[in-house]
């Protein structure tokens, strides 16, 4: 009896979380423009989406920013985590505090504070401001992911390499980076997703010259249902499905990693 209740509870919550997405995906294949009833299968909304030049441009921009931001944030975050784990420096606590603040701060605070910075410093709003903002909000997550992995591995490995005469670069390239690979990939995927998912920060720090998906979608759906958006949304749902499963596999690899723990 209790098991049935529990199952029902889980099913109810998952129905609430998934039903809207399922309907959205179904409607992207629905010949009925407003999704009022099922009028047969069609791919015309996907064609309409591909034919919508400004929407496609925004999608390209978003993907490009996401790839750049994920790569840069993973790189910077990994270096920060490595330096942070091995090197005591004054202001370490400030560093830690700033990271936590960045992670906990509501997006809207981050968004407008960066907007003020960009305008005061004179960085015009567009690709660069967007990229800097996305790297900034991704950074704490990469530092945390990579730090967690660093804590797992054996510090004697590094001492051994050093004793055997390895240079700093050799240690980084042949010991640290290979050991960190799953964490680096997982954090790249997370940053990529965070960047694509972001609505609030992007709304504030990009300019009219560089339209990105959330803004484009927002302005399109403010007035009503847009079947091209349904098609695009279906693709985005598919993408996040793939990304979650991928990162899950990477985490599994990490757990299976035995001897040093």
């Amino acid at each position, binding site marked *: 009896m209790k098991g049935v209740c529990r199952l029902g509870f889980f099913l109810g919550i998952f129905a609430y979380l998934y039903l809207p997405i399922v*309907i959205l995906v179904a*409607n992207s294949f629905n010949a009925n423009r407003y999704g009022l009833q099922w009028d047969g299968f069609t791919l015309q909304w996907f064609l309409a989406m591909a034919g919508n030049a400004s929407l496609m441009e925004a999608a390209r921009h978003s993907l490009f920013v996401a790839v750049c931001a994920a790569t840069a944030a993973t790189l910077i975050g990994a270096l920060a985590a490595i330096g*942070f784990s091995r090197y005591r420096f004054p202001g370490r606590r400030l560093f830690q505090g700033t990271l936590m603040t*960045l992670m906990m701060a509501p997006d*809207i605070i981050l968004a407008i504070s960066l907007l*003020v910075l960009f305008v005061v410093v004179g960085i015009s709003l567009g690709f660069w401001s967007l990229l800097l*903002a996305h790297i900034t909000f991704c950074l704490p997550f990469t530092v945390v992911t990579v730090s967690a992995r660093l804590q797992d591995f054996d510090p004697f490995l590094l001492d051994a390499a050093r004793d055997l005469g390895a240079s700093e670069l050799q240690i980084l390239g042949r010991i640290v980076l290979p050991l960190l690979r799953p964490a680096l990939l997982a954090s790249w995927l997370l940053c990529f997703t965070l960047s694509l998912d972001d609505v609030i920060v992007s709304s504030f720090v990009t300019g009219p010259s560089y339209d990105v998906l959330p803004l484009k979608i927002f302005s399109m759906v403010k007035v009503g249902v847009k079947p091209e958006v349904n098609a695009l949304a279906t693709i985005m749902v598919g993408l*996040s499905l793939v990304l979650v499963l991928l990162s899950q596999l990477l985490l599994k690899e990490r757990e299976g990693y035995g001897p040093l723990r």
Partner: protein
Amino acid sequence: MKSSGRTERLVTVLVSLWLVLFGVVPLLLLVATSFFAQDPIDFFRLAPSLESYRQLLDPGYLQVMRRSVQFAALTTLLCLLIGYPFAWYTSRLSRPARVLVLVLLMIPFWTNSLVRTYAIRMVLGSQGLLNQALLALGIIDSPLRLLYTDTAVVLGLFYLMLPFMILPLYACLEKLDYRLVEAARDLGAGFLQTLLRIVWPLSLPGVYAGCIMVFVPTMGLFYVATLLGGARQLLVGNLIQQQFLNARNWPLGSATSVVLILMMALMLTGYWLVLRRLAGRRRQ
């Protein structure tokens, strides 16, 4: 060891500089902006002024703030009521089942939140699935007006924020020593007693963390209010967005966000106090 430290030191300094430049400085600039005079052309004028804070106390403005806090509080409460049993049940599942539940929770979480808000709108529309289902079941005879209501906004906020509540709660409940629950049961405690006197107090850090992750960020989700609540200004996020992007009144927008920052600081202090009290109790 000494020579090898140089690269690391350089990198660490550079990253710290990045964090200061893009983390600390913008926040200080934001707070500073709130104390400047307003200027419709240049966003703000470099003259000290408390005008923005006076405008915050405007009845209309205060009204939005109060409603926004109500929305956020209701959303947080809903997330807690649903998220707590969810996290508890999940932490009691077998390992593979637990992974499955968490992955299922993560998939929507990793999907664009604007897209998900739009999806909710489809369900709630007057011709949407919910109305059609209710009509077909004969529960109602004419479509309900669900979209552009406060209920729709709360449902949307709840939908987006639920994982933020569940994950910290789960992290906390997963670590809970189940033998404590068994001991309580053996000693004759009922369900309610075990929950209120054992599980709940031990899960307070998770509860606080979840509430912090939900409460203040909820007030910033301006697009949910716009898409599900219509054009009205419902959340503090809408006010900030309007002052920054439409009215070009940066000092007022900054002052509004300073209020959010203060709320956040207050909640973090509360969290810290709870952690300290729990740590103290454990030591006794």
